[in-house]
């Protein structure tokens, strides 16, 4: 009776159907809700690494105003933050500090590499003291090119990050 292949097939089908129903009616809405909550309340860490911080500051100014898109102004306490925006060049002295900052942030967390320097060393590709790309020490989700990126480009990068969060698993 137990080894009846027809029954096995039936049980398998039933669990599939159950799984599908669960997926559609329970997990999917939960995932949607959680991601929706996360994606419009991004808290960036206040870690300035180089000159791109000026355009980051200008982006929170009144003309560009990133808050409209659900990213708050830079904030001091790491325990409340979920986005690390690497604002430009990371030097050898800054690199370990940046890694500590990243490790102290609670999950889930995302990293934006802002500026040519953070992506690949940029203008400082042959400097003796510059890390050639921050993705060597922290996982990067979005790269924003430019030197420095205009605030509009930064905003586009933030929207890209939100698209990524929207699709992510919970």
């Amino acid at each position: 009776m137990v080894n009846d292949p027809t029954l096995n097939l039936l049980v398998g089908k039933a669990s599939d159907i159950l799984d599908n129903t669960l997926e559609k009616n329970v997990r999917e809405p939960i995932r949607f809700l959680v991601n929706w909550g996360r994606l419009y309340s991004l808290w960036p860490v206040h870690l300035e690494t180089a000159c791109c911080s000026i355009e980051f500051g200008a982006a929170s100014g009144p003309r560009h105003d990133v808050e409209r898109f659900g990213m708050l102004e830079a904030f001091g306490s790491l325990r409340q933050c979920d986005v690390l925006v690497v604002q430009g060049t990371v030097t050898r002295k800054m690199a370990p500090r940046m890694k500590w900052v990243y490790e102290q942030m609670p999950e889930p967390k995302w990293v934006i590499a802002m500026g040519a320097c953070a992506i690949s060393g940029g203008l400082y590709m042959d400097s003796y003291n510059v890390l050639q790309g921050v993705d060597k020490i922290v996982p990067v989700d979005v790269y924003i090119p430019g030197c420095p990126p205009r605030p509009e480009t930064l905003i586009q990068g933030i929207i890209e990050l939100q698209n990524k969060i929207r699709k992510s698993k919970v």
Partner: protein
Amino acid sequence: MQNAAMNIEDKGGDQLVLHVGPQHPGSGHFRIIVTVDGDYIVGAKPDPGYVHRGAEKMAEYRDYIQNIPHLERPVIIDATGVTLPYVLTAEKIIDVEAPDRAQYIRMIMAELNRIISHLYWLGIYGIFLGHSTMFMWPMGDRELFIDLAESIGGTRVTFSYVVPGGVRNDMPTNFKERALKTFDYFEKRIEEYKKIFFNNPLMSARTEGIGTMDKKDAIRLGITGSNLRACGIDSDTRKDETYCLYDRVDFEIPTRKEGDSYARCIVRLEELQQSMNIMKQVFDLIEPGPIKQVIGGVMRGEPGEAFVRTEAARGTMFYHIVSDGEKNPYRVKISVPSFRNLIGMTHLLVGSRLADMPAIYWSLDYWPVEADR
């Protein structure tokens, strides 16, 4: 100062050691290690170098034109202020001279950049004192000046506009009208800034008599720029060792006697007006003509050395270039005002309260990227 203490060390007795920065809303890209006894700071040890990118060394293996973009990066808020002395020094080495029109446009760009830089400073100072409106207003008005500079230089902050022999391109034809309109608007705004911020009793309570620098100390420590002028010394490189065509325009050097944080703020505020006055005079003086002396082939310096001092937004910017006749400079030495202001900061912090630290720190307009180079 929220979470001022990233790192606390008990020194025994009543003293504690606090590490402020580099991840701190008020520190920017540097760290300062302060020893506090109760609420008072008894020792301050700065730890700069978080943005040291070796600009001086890199300048040795790039030619005179390639050097401009990366020497601009230390102070991209004041991009022309930092490239102009380099270009003037390089011009001495290469032995070219820019035509008059180019000199005037350089002055316009330098003054625009001074305003952009001072407004950025003012916005951040507002945040430091917990005055959010004073962040929003200057940041919004700064965009108008960025628009003006962008219409000449082609990009928001990093123009690389000044080149040996002149400037890259001419200014747009309707620039004067646009600029005068912006100045009219901004002159009214300065009055409003005074109403909401500078004459605000809360602001003066947090800055008046805080971080007072003595005239003698200021000279001894090598402080330059607005910080020196706030101690009652009317030193301005634009007048003392005139460059470009600053000798043809007439402007005042705002000074204050007190030497405290408030005096430094007021001096910078008055400099905004002076910069606009300079530009207005330049608009009347400027005449059509060539904007560049074309240099054929690769630029090569004559063997020898040259130095130039100019007045950037933060103080005296000094370049010393040694050339051995090759297409790359042999040595480029940059002496930046921020580094000297850092010495001043250490001097001012000792003896003041920990809560006054942001007010003193940012009143000196210390820009760590510039100090580290």
